[in-house]
């Protein structure tokens, strides 16, 4: 390799950031990136207090890098990512809305951040007050009386919710009630729903989505039986539609003493418009990292609070955050609780951010309207606008008024040999993060677009212009779509090789 090519290939920096070695390759013996005070007490040799066969010395594999180089390393890595703060993120079902900066700042207030979970309660008041208030606001918006904030993510919330369902039935079964073994899950559900039911020990009964993209009452009637423990339904569903028959379905489920679990992943469409409790919902989880704007963090931390009707309160995880007089307390004496589901009290660092957001979107001065309703309305209007603009160019999977997201199919483009994945990758060339693809499974080559309320009309128009341009390329110049992406950090990545020759940690031998 010529020196010229080597220098070009290894060039780094904000403008042409291409290759960044791993931490381990940047390591140089003797370099350090830390400073500690001199130990004020006699230094102990570990082997003098711990059995020798349990001890180890320095871990020779750990990297040795100076602080400046560590900073550059991570700043360069950061620059190789798409994020909300750089652009529109039309990921369906993920609610990639703007993450307000004030929420980050208040979450860093030292006296809020340093609270230790095992301090006496009188030292936990700020944290418990925040959790208590958040629970109250979630109750206001859902109509469900009691909340736990312990689940660390949506799927974790599902786990808690279905365990509560099971605890409810187990109690009845002990008193001679029927054995409940099955949970109804629509075929459009997120993968977490069936996975959760299995984890808790329920069988899945799948119910098909009707021709209009929603579950039909007759299809529920067909599979209704005394063994049904309940239903797990996402509403609005993953087809981006409101389950119009939800109330009747809830009645049917209740008629066999089943419980209605609503997956609140798509709550952003209906906040302030309808209350899940009024729809017949008994248990529900909410993704604070979707509807209530806490940052996705490249894959967490999230938070998945679970709300229940009052008769299910006794099953909520231990402990509950309650208020007695002016003191906030942890109620631990809950004999019928499903137990503890995470180490301490949930992702409190996320609860702070969500509360700040929810207080920002309160009742609008001099009106009885709330910004939360405005939020949902704007999100739904934006999605419908995209549906309207793209309709002439793409097959709309369910072409009626949608909620917060619209689902396209690749049926038209398939005629030109283009699939959904190609369209997604081509979007990158135009500077956008792709939409959610191939979900829901029931739509052929699904492309799920969720604009959220955060975007301006100009952004939506620009995105639609690009989508329309890609639709035209599919007809006139399919090659550029098939070869995409060619303008971003990487071209087609060999995913098969990652599985056939697994390299799941760095090793000194190069690939």
């Amino acid at each position, binding site marked *: 390799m010529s020196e010229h090519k080597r220098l070009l290939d290894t060039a780094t920096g904000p403008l042409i950031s291409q290759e960044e070695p791993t931490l381990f390759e940047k390591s140089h013996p003797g370099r350090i990136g830390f400073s500690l005070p001199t130990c004020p*007490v006699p230094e102990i040799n570990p082997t003098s207090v711990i059995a020798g066969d349990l001890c180890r010395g320095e871990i020779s594999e750990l990297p040795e890098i100076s602080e400046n180089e560590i900073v550059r390393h991570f700043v360069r890595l950061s620059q190789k990512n798409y994020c909300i703060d750089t652009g529109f993120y039309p990921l369906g079902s993920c609610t990639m809305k703007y993450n307000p900066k004030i929420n980050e700042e208040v979450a860093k207030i030292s006296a809020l951040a340093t609270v230790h979970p095992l301090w006496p309660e009188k030292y936990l008041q*700020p944290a418990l007050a925040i959790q208590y208030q958040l629970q109250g606001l979630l109750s206001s918006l859902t109509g469900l009386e009691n909340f736990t904030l312990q689940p660390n993510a949506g799927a974790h919330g599902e786990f808690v919710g279905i365990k509560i369902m099971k605890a409810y039935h187990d109690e009845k079964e002990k008193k001679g009630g029927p054995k409940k073994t099955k949970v109804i899950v629509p075929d459009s559900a997120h993968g977490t729903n069936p996975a959760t039911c299995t984890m808790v020990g329920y069988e899945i009964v799948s119910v098909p989505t009707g021709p209009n993209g929603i579950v039909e009452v007759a299809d529920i009637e067909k599979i209704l039986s005394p063994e049904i423990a309940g239903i797990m339904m996402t509403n609005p569903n993953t087809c981006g539609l409101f389950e119009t028959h939800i109330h009747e379905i809830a009645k049917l489920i209740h008629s066999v003493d089943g419980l209605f679990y609503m997956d609140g992943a798509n709550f952003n469409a209906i906040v302030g418009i309808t209350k899940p409790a009024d729809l017949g919902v008994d248990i529900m989880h909410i993704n604070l990292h979707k509807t209530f704007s806490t940052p996705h963090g490249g894959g967490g931390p999230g938070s998945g609070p679970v709300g229940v009707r009052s008769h299910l309160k006794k099953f909520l995880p231990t402990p509950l955050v309650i208020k007695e007089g002016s003191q906030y307390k942890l109620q631990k004496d809950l004999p019928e609780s499903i137990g503890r589901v995470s180490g301490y009290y949930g992702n409190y*660092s996320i609860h702070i951010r969500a509360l700040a957001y929810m207080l920002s979107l309160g009742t609008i001065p001099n009106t009885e309207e709330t910004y939360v309703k405005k939020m949902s309305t704007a999100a739904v209007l934006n999605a419908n606008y995209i549906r309207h603009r793209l309709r002439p160019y793409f097959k709309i999977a369910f072409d009626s008024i949608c909620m917060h997201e619209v689902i396209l199919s690749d049926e038209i483009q398939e005629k030109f040999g283009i699939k959904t994945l190609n369209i997604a990758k081509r979007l990158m060339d135009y500077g956008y993060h792709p939409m959610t693809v191939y979900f829901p499974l029931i739509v052929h080559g699904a492309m799920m677009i969720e604009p959220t309320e955060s975007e301006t009309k100009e952004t939506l128009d620009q995105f639609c212009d690009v989508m329309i341009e890609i639709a035209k390329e599919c007809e006139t110049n399919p090659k550029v779509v098939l070869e995409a992406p060619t303008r*971003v950090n990487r071209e087609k990545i060999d*995913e098969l090789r990652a599985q056939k020759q697994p390299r799941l940690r760095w090793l000194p031998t190069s690939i």
Partner: protein
Amino acid sequence: MIATEAATGTFRERPVSPKGGSTASSESSVEASMKYIPQGKDDEKELLKAIGLKSTEELFSNIPSQLRIKKPLDYPRAQSEIEIRQTFENLSKLSPVPSVSFAGCGVYSHYIPSIVPQIQGRSEFATAYTPYQPEISQGLLQAIFEYQTLACQLTECELSNASVYDGATALAEGVLMALRLKKKSEGKILVSQSIHPFYQEVLRSYCTVFEDRIQMLPLEGDVLSLKALEQNIESADVVVTQSPNIFGVIENYSAVSKLVKNSKAFWVTSTMEPFAWGVLRGPGAFGAHIVTGEGQSFGNAAYLGGSSFGIFATRNEYLRNLPGRLVGETVDQKNRRSYVLTFATREQFIRRDKATSNICTNQNLNMLAGLIHLATLGKKGFREVAVQNLSRSEYLKNKIRSETKLKVSSAATFNEFTIESREDASRIVEAGTQQGFIPGVALGSLRSEWSKKLSIHANELHDLEQMNSLVRFLKSYE
């Protein structure tokens, strides 16, 4: 009333009466947009017109009218940014801030280098989604790959995932994974009584289906009874241990290892304080099949115990049974080194009800803080933090032993240990808080039979004066 109360009281007032008696169900009469919702009335009109609708009400025509909210929501007034800041400042003052805390027991307030929050808070990391699109997510993917590597190095395992929720759920997921690998068997799940009681509770919540197979292994002093393990291991499918344990005591993994190796059981370990691996061999070195841990100590503030991240490592042979996300190295079309989420066929979004776990979102940003912290420490710093923690804890332990009448356990510990008093340890904590500091965790709050035990943790942030003051304070107890 179920609505929130502003703890501050300042911003609590209910909305004043509406103009012209409009109701929440009629078309929004709101003129202004707000800073997070750019869509103003003019935009709204334009968008509605484009799609051929008359009002935003029509957008919700699929929601039966009787199911829609008619009455104004019981919801507090919207706060401006200035008010939000004030609200949280006020909330933060609801409790005093202790002058110093010796609390540990699974959450450790180590020093967090300044570069950690600076980098972790960058938009490109904080506001990105899970890196499902590798071409535009190489930075996040490489960071996860580097974390997986470090986690392997620390635990002395071959394989690590991208993190799970926390230490307690990591342990529970570990046991579920072991049970999957032992699927035809009906043996016992032996769980050491020395494991943090909260972890035990989470394990039970996760394993209700297998509840009748769980058998607790008794303690011998402050460690797992090896005799009990030996007597029961033949009937076991899974052995679950924690080191350092809830008393801060280092379990004898050499001895456990010998017993496990002569059995058919899978060994799942937990570590609440991963800095212990700066002086202790990783559990993988003793042949543990699944190694789990709490990652909070690396780069994350206490935050009431969340958010943090769970460490999850194992052997290559169990790759297809691993829960959670995994990043692998590969190349792109131009043969450039690239990273990608891989072996997704284990996960819920592909396998649905047959998945290895229902986990989807994990704790990526917390893991990133851990990665940056570990990178700054590096080979020398990681060791030095561990040795300083051990040294300070030993200093404190010896001083309490020689200068007070309290009983100090003689078992080997890392950076926390327990002392026993004749009186309830919660009274010692209460007395400490009267002086504005927190002397430790009264273990009776975790299990009533431990009411006389006080757990004390010391790390690189505790200076000599703070440690000496604690000893002076403890002199009045016996």
